[in-house]
Each structure stands twice: as structure tokens, then as C-alpha cells.
């Protein structure tokens, strides 16, 4: 008996090992292609402006700091820091808005049985598939009539009014998964919905709240179309618009400054990702399952 299993084992192990090597070679190859542009931008930020496009070295033999130093001058009299503060404000407020409004909405859909719930839930899911461009023009007209162009109100209104259906959906899924006994016990103890929401459901929903918060932050940080349409004064520009203005000023083929700023603009997103990747990926994964 033992000899047979031993034979099997010796036959299997080398195959397993070559399989493992092939697997790692493939995975590493994909990894190199995927990460190349990210590593490239870091190296390029330290290359002399003229060498950025043509050079094939990932990192320059002699790193230069000119590109990064150039950022300190700002653009058209506005310091780069202003754009970052604006983006930080936009993204931070977006997070506050989405977390509050989406969790309230999700609680209603997941935990309260009111008349018309199924219909409204279906409508909410329907907005997931609605192209934003259909709403773009009337929203612009409305905000223009309210004299809110060139403010952050049009960018943030939707966040505070739970129009980001994806996050509502994510939280509904999560809240439905919580044990019913908890809110039934709360009800027996005389907790109203507000108490149950605040002291029981919300703390337990934390993973979904964190996932939504990080996605919201990153989406707002990357947002280009919203600021492009609603902001028209450079001192209010977010990083995305600042980058475009920078490129327009320096000339499109002068890569030094724009690549340096592009790299700096990516840092917050990459830092967030490294810190919270588990929440992001698990959040994404569950969204597709039900």
C-alpha cells in the first residue's frame, strides 16, 4: 500500500511543481503589463522633460527634480495646493453625503416594510442603468437658474440625496444579511427606527460604509466631467481640471510638468487603495453576486 501511495506522490509532485512555475510565470507576466504604466509615471516624473517620451529606461540613470520643482510655481498664479485642497473638499464632502444619505435609504429598503417599497426599490435599481448624460442638460439648466454654477453645490447635491444607487444597493444587500433577531430585539426593547438605525444597524454595516466611502472618495477625486461642466473659475478647480489647465499652459508636448503633476495626483488614490484594498475588492465582489 505504502509503496503505491509513494509512487503516486512522486509522480504527482513534479507535475505540481511545474504547474506552479507556469502559473507564476503567467501571473508575473500579467503583473508586469498591468503595473507598467504606474511604474512608468513614477520614473518619468524624474526624467528630463525632453527624454520622457523617447526614453525606454523605466527609471532615469540620473534623476532630475526639475519637473517636481516646477510644480511649486503653480499655474497662472494659483498654487498646486489649491487644487488639492479643492479636490479634498469635494471628495470629503461627497463621502459625508453618500454615507449619510445612502445608509438612511438602505435602511428604509432593508428594514422597514412600508407601502410601495417594492416599486420604489425597482425604480432605484433602474437608475443604476440610466446614463447620466440624459440628466446632464436639465440639471445644468436647473442649477443655472438657481445661480449655483461655479459652486460645488451641483457636484454634491446628488451625493447628499442618495442618487448613487450603487452604494444604496450595496448597503441594502449588507443590511439584509444582518440577523433579523437583532432589530426584532431592539423593537421589543422599545427602540424606534431611528434608534435601531443609529445604534444597531449602522455600526454593524461598517464594512459596507467603508467600501462606499472609499469608492466615493476615489470617484470624486477622479471626477472630470462634473467639475468641467460646473466649475469655471481656476481658483475653484479640482486636481483634474488643474491638470488640464497645466497642460494647456505648458503645451501638450511638454511632458515634464504634466507627468510630474499626474504622478502627484495619483498618490492619494494609490495610498487609499493600498490601505483599504480588502474593503474595495470584497465590496466589488459582493455587488455582482446577487
Amino acid at each position, binding site marked *: 500500500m505504502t509503496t503505491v501511495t509513494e509512487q503516486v506522490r512522486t509522480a504527482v509532485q513534479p507535475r505540481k511543481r511545474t504547474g506552479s512555475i507556469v502559473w*507564476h510565470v503567467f*501571473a508575473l507576466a*500579467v*503583473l508586469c503589463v*498591468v*503595473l507598467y*504604466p*504606474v511604474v*512608468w*509615471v513614477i520614473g*518619468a516624473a524624474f526624467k528630463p522633460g525632453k527624454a*520622457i*517620451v523617447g526614453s525606454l529606461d523605466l527609471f532615469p540613470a540620473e534623476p532630475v527634480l526639475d519637473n517636481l520643482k516646477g510644480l511649486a510655481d503653480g499655474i497662472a498664479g494659483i498654487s498646486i495646493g489649491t487644487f488639492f485642497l479643492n479636490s479634498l473638499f469635494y471628495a470629503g464632502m461627497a463621502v459625508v453625503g453618500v454615507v449619510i*444619505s445612502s445608509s*438612511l*435609504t438602505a435602511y*428604509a*429598503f432593508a428594514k*422597514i*416594510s*412600508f*407601502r*410601495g417599497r417594492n416599486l*420604489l426599490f425597482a*425604480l*432605484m435599481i433602474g*437608475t443604476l*442603468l*440610466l*446614463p*447620466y*448624460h*440624459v440628466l*446632464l*442638460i*436639465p440639471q*445644468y*439648466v*436647473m442649477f443655472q437658474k438657481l445661480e449655483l454654477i461655479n459652486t460645488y453645490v451641483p457636484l454634491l447635491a446628488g451625493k*447628499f*440625496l*442618495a*442618487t448613487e444607487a450603487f452604494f*444604496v444597493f450595496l448597503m441594502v444587500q449588507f443590511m439584509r444579511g444582518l440577523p433579523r433577531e437583532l432589530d426584532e430585539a431592539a423593537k421589543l426593547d422599545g427602540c*424606534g427606527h431611528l434608534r435601531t438605525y443609529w445604534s444597531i444597524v449602522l455600526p454593524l454595516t461598517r464594512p459596507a460604509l467603508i467600501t462606499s466611502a472609499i469608492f466615493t472618495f*476615489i470617484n470624486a*477625486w477622479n471626477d*472630470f466631467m462634473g467639475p468641467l461642466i460646473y466649475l469655471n473659475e481656476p481658483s475653484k478647480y479640482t486636481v483634474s481640471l488643474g*491638470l488640464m489647465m497645466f*497642460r494647456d499652459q505648458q503645451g501638450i508636448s511638454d*511632458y515634464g510638468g504634466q507627468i510630474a503633476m499626474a504622478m502627484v495626483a*495619483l498618490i492619494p*488614490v*494609490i495610498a487609499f487603495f493600498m490601505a483599504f*484594498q480588502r474593503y474595495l*475588492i470584497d465590496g*466589488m*465582489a459582493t455587488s*455582482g*453576486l446577487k
Partner: protein
Amino acid sequence: MSLVKDATGAPSLAGESSVRPAAHKRRGRRENLSGYLFLSPWLAGFLLLTAGPMIASLYYAFTNYNLFAPPQWIGFDNFTAMFEDPRWQKSVQVTLKYVVIGTPLKLLLALGVALLLNQSRRGQGLYRAAFYAPSLIGASVSVGFVWRAIFSDNAVVDKGLGAIGLNLGGWIGDPDLIIYSLVALTVWQFGAPMVIFLAGLKQVPRELYEAAAVDGAGPLRRFWNITLPMISPVLFFNVLLESIHSFQIFGSAYVVSNTFCGPADATLVYTCYLYQKGFQQSQMGFASAMAWMLLLAVALVTAVLFWSQKKWVHYEEGAK
């Protein structure tokens, strides 16, 4: 206390005969009130920012509206002008090319890599995280700059392809190739659908594979007869979301092509043309008509996918 409620939210009696109907009614009304109170931010958003604007844009689509004078009803003129407009036709072509080439490539890569990562090996979680990262930064202006640089004349892609004998020149300046730099950008972001595929693959019961292996089914048979049907709901979800998403590409095209449209309108994607018409030429009526055509296209794709899912999407009866 067990109050069983039916779908409409009206409580119905279950067992507890001691509770009087009047108390139920009051309870139900209270639930309705709390429900709508909790829902009020969403309801306001839905009415003011979604439903209202949808109706308004449908109305604008049939008007001549430049934002300064009140809209003038012109019937179907925007739509006829749109169909005859060569740049509109071009934008449809460009967008379809982008969607039809980019989405399947992205999903194939996502599925392939998910199958690879689904084998438990060391470093699996790290690979998964790294492959997902581009999905988070791909739509940013920064990556748009990077893309423009690495697909330029004499840059990495050009030289790399030259080294294997493909002298295509820079893609950015070439009207035939620039769209493929955008396709490459979307394919690069395969991580998001990959993560969803992976989650689906994890749910396939192992016993199925073991049984198939006993029956002598090879890896290809197992993939075709077990994996694919078992993950078909996830595949459906990914196809639906990714194609709807690609129809709406805007930022990347704007940044990579710089002038909006690239050489010879080669990257004039639909939403960029909509933006030009609406916000640069103040033709809000025409732009609204364009937006409604986009909505119809997306609705059509959604409807066809939902209709077709009976044929290829396998839902497990009675979830475990």
C-alpha cells in the same frame, strides 16, 4: 410577537390573535411614515435630480433651446438633423467600435485571469489586488496623460512594436490607431470584472468538478459544461454593466485625444460630441435629443441582454 407582513407592507395576522386589528393598522401606518421619512433624501433626489430632469430632457429634445431664450417647440427636427449630421454618424461609429472591440476583450481577459487566480497559489491575494488597481485610476486625467505619452510617436509602445517588426508609428497621431489606445485603456482596467468573476468562481461547488473528473471529463469539458454555466449569472452581470459603461466613455477620450476628437474625428465618442453640442455650441435641444438616443441605445442593449439570458444564463433553482 410575530407580525408577518405581506409585500405591500400591510401587516397580516400570524398566530397572535390577541392583537387587535386596530393596533395593526396603527402599526402599519407608523411603518409607512417611518419608511418615507427615512427615504426622504432619496425621494427628493429621485424627483429633483432624476425623474424631473428626465422629463425635462425629453421635452428639450423636441425644442430649439440655447439656454438664453426660452425653448421653442420644433417637433422631430433635432432628430432628423442628427441623423443627417455626418459628425453624429461618425460619433456613433467611433463609440460602437470602442464598445464592440473593447468590452469583449476586457471581459475575456478578466475571465482568463480570474480562472488563473482561482487556483489557490501563494501570492494570489496580492495579484488580485494589483490587477484591480488600474480600475481605480484608469478614468483619471493623470492616466490619460500617461496614455498619451506612452502611445506617442517614438514612445514605448511604438518602439516595442518596432522591435518585433511592427512599425506602426505613434498611435495618438494616427486616425486609424488612436481609438485602439482607448481600447487598450479600457482593457487595462479588466480588474473590476475580474474580481466579480473570481467571486462567482468561488461559489461553484467543488463536488461538481470531482464528479466530472471521475467521469473522465478533461479540463476543457469541465470548463464548458460546469464552470461556464455556473458563472453565467456573473457573466451576464459583467456584460451588462461593462457594455453600458463603455457607451458612456468621456473623460479618457477627452484627455487622451486632447482636442476632443483626435485626428480626423477618430476619437469623437458620443458623449464628447454631446458635450460639444450642448456646452460649447449651446445647442441644448440637439444635445438632449442625442442624450435620449443614447438612453434608447442603452435600453435596447439591456433589453436584448435580458431577453437573451433565458437562452444562456443558468440560475440555480432554489438557492442553498
